[in-house]
């Protein structure tokens, strides 16, 4: 077992903290002579108390992985049958990633069915304005609000079998039947369309055309793009998988290192931000 190898046995400080006070005298004496025993005891304790083994110590990675899965949860906590990505957790995580000196890049793995517009756009804006390199990878599906998140990263990949569904926004709940409701909906949709077109090479008109296309989805309006289609249309940069995404991220990290303090990614941000307002 990897976690019991000679080097790792020496690291007994962390598990010792978990020892209950009643048993603290004996293990501490043991720990001084034979670190293996206390390590094993900590492991057994971890199994009995949490029903899980301790994750074997790994070499420290300079890349952080964030998986955006299921529904992107907004201001309402969704019922428990949904798998959700909680924006109030993801956003501070992005702050920590941006701030942490040991993390140099972020890999965003997407397999999501969509979710709250504002929460999705909030995550996308955070990713967009991060100074550290980020690469997105769509696996399975990156539907609806996942698209802004995918394009917000510096570079995007899509698995060849993954799909992106582009469809119009819909209002839920009580809708007041006045023309202004339509205008409001249009405005909300524009936020998404504008963000996606600003961060990819697709035009707003083309994206709207895909959004309102009929005949592609059964009983619905919109388009399903499979892998290479999303690349051809300029939404995603490349078709690829895990190794491609990590290689691209590594390249971006090397570039950033090479640029040093005068990294060109930092001055880029205000000009990109200004572009949104136009």
């Amino acid at each position, binding site marked *: 077992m990897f976690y019991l190898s000679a080097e790792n046995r020496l690291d007994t400080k962390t598990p010792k903290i978990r020892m209950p006070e009643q048993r603290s005298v004996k293990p501490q004496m043991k720990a001084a002579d034979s670190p293996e025993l206390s390590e094993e005891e900590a492991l057994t304790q971890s199994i009995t*108390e949490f029903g899980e083994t301790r994750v074997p110590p790994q070499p420290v990675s300079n890349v*952080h992985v964030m998986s955006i899965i299921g*529904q992107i949860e*907004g*201001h*309402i*906590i*969704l*019922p*428990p*049958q*949904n798998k959700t990505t*909680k924006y*109030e*957790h993801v956003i*501070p*995580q992005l*702050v*920590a*990633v941006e*701030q*942490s000196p040991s993390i140099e890049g972020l890999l965003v793995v997407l397999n999501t*069915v*969509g*979710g*709250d*517009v*504002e929460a*999705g756009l909030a995550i996308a804006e955070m990713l967009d304005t991060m100074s550290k390199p980020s690469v997105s990878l769509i696996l399975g*599906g990156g*539907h*609806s*609000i996942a698209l802004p998140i995918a394009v917000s990263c510096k570079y995007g990949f899509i698995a060849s079998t993954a799909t992106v*569904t582009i*469809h119009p*926004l*819909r*209002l*839920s*709940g009580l809708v007041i039947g006045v023309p202004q409701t339509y205008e409001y909906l249009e405005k*909300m949709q524009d936020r*998404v369309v504008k963000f996606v077109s600003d961060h990819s090479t697709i035009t707003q008109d083309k994206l709207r055309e895909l959004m309102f296309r009929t005949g592609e989805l059964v009983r619905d309006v919109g388009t399903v793009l499979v892998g290479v289609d999303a690349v051809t249309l300029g939404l995603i940069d490349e078709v690829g998988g895990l190794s491609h995404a990590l290689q691209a991220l590594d390249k971006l990290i090397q570039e950033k290192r090479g640029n040093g303090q005068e990294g060109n990614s930092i001055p880029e941000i205000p000009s990109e931000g200004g572009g949104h307002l136009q």
Partner: protein
Amino acid sequence: MILYTVLPLETVLEGLEQERSFVDIQLQGLTLTVEPISMEEAVIVRIISTDPLHYLNPQFSPGRKIRLFKGFSSGMTML
């Protein structure tokens, strides 16, 4: 709230009426919102902290089950 999703809204929102009760607890110096699932266990719903590093700590990730018991202090503790 506008949900922009490919799933039918009925599927997503099914069971929304069911009331869920959350409690805020103090654990290792930070506040957590948890959903008790039994007398002894609770599931972390949200972290309330201004330290971004708390959000990277897998011990406090939402969905994690924690065991509660009344300690010597008034707070609840993780085993």
